[in-house]
């Protein structure tokens, strides 16, 4: 446990020193979401109908942005070898990376989603559901993204390959997250959608670190 926390602390320290990565993901989120009113027009009823979907798609894309450096930097400078020899099982190493990604990217995206959703004129009754659904959704994106980042590690065009691996895996998150928020804005209960997200998270929590750990092992071979 102390080894896990030591690793996580190192990840957070690195993220603070390279703060521009987090800021870049947040700015991308903001900019991408701002493009929609420009493209489809500022009519409030259209925007508020589309707001949950726009927020979800943009958050998904922004979460993928820093993923190619998640293990890429460590592979290039030899740190990945040292991390695998840290004395933690590879899945726990991958889990520490996923937690680090969530704290540094997922959580800030969740916080930034509130003003962006308001900017897109989301219905007030849907906003709390959007934020609640983004909590498991961003965690899922971090876990799935860790798998994708580990799988494409060492591939020559890993940065291009990464979205192609992660985006299809992330479609259920998009579907249930956006549909739950939609349901709330139509006055229906979002409960079923939120439970689906929670179930996906419960499945991803054990399986994603195991898959990512196996991919890391084969990447250094």
């Amino acid at each position, binding site marked *: 446990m102390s080894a896990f926390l*030591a*690793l996580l*602390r*190192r990840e957070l*320290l*690195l993220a603070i*020193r*390279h703060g521009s990565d987090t800021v870049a993901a947040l700015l991308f989120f903001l900019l991408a979401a701002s493009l929609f009113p420009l493209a489809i027009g500022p009519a409030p009823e259209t925007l508020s109908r589309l707001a949950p979907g726009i927020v979800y798609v943009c958050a998904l894309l922004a979460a993928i942005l820093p993923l190619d450096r998640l293990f890429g930097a460590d592979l290039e*400078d*030899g*740190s990945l*070898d*040292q991390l*695998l*020899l*840290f*004395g*933690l*099982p*590879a899945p726990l190493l991958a889990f520490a990376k996923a937690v680090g990604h969530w704290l540094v990217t997922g959580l800030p995206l969740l916080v930034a989603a509130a003003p962006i959703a308001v900017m897109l004129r989301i219905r007030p009754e849907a906003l709390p559901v959007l934020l609640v659904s983004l909590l498991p959704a961003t965690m899922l994106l971090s876990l799935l993204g860790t798998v994708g980042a580990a799988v494409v590690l060492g591939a020559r065009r890993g940065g291009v390959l990464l979205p192609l691996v992660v985006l299809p895996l992330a479609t259920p998150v998009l579907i249930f997250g956006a549909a739950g928020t939609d349901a709330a804005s139509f006055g229906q209960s979002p409960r079923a959608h939120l439970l689906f997200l929670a179930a996906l998270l419960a499945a991803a929590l054990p399986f994603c670190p195991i898959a990512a750990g196996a991919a890391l*092992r084969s990447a*250094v*071979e």
Partner: protein
Amino acid sequence: MSVLQAEELATIRGERLVFAGLSFRVAEGGALLLTGPNGAGKSTLLRLLAGLGRLEAGRLLWQGADALEDLTLHARRVAYLGHLDAVKPGLTAVENLRAWGGRGAVAEALAAVGLSPLADLPVRLFSAGQRRRLALARLMMRAAPLWLLDEPTLGLDAASVGRFGAMLARHRAHGGIVVAATHLPLPLPGADELVLGG
């Protein structure tokens, strides 16, 4: 008693047989020097011993038991120094080592490689030799019995090589094992030599 023992190791990299039928044993406090031309498989063998490579055939034994069966357990026995320094330029020397131990251990390791005055400087400002010394300091943090070193003295000045010799002697005096790949003379008195073919 022999601690590290390799039996008939063979490995393949990119469809090419790097080596086969490789056997050796290193006793407690012993050292093994890997020599041979570039591409002979020295680094590959070191990674294999660290549990970072895939063994095609043969067995690696640690105190008589299969070492690679439990990679996490094996990782705790190993301190590996690759040809890359694996230090983060954005962190200070202390921060680079902090994950591997407490403040006291970090200060001790930095003192052993003569980096104490630079402890709080970002590694971005370090020279290549100083980064190498920081990577050597991490070896000490591990308290692992098996040191696997890939060209450990590359870029080091004479004084640093002397300090590194003292580190190696202390490690071996405590029963530690050193396996090192090198083209340069290393301060490892009484080391066996294993010549890998081209």
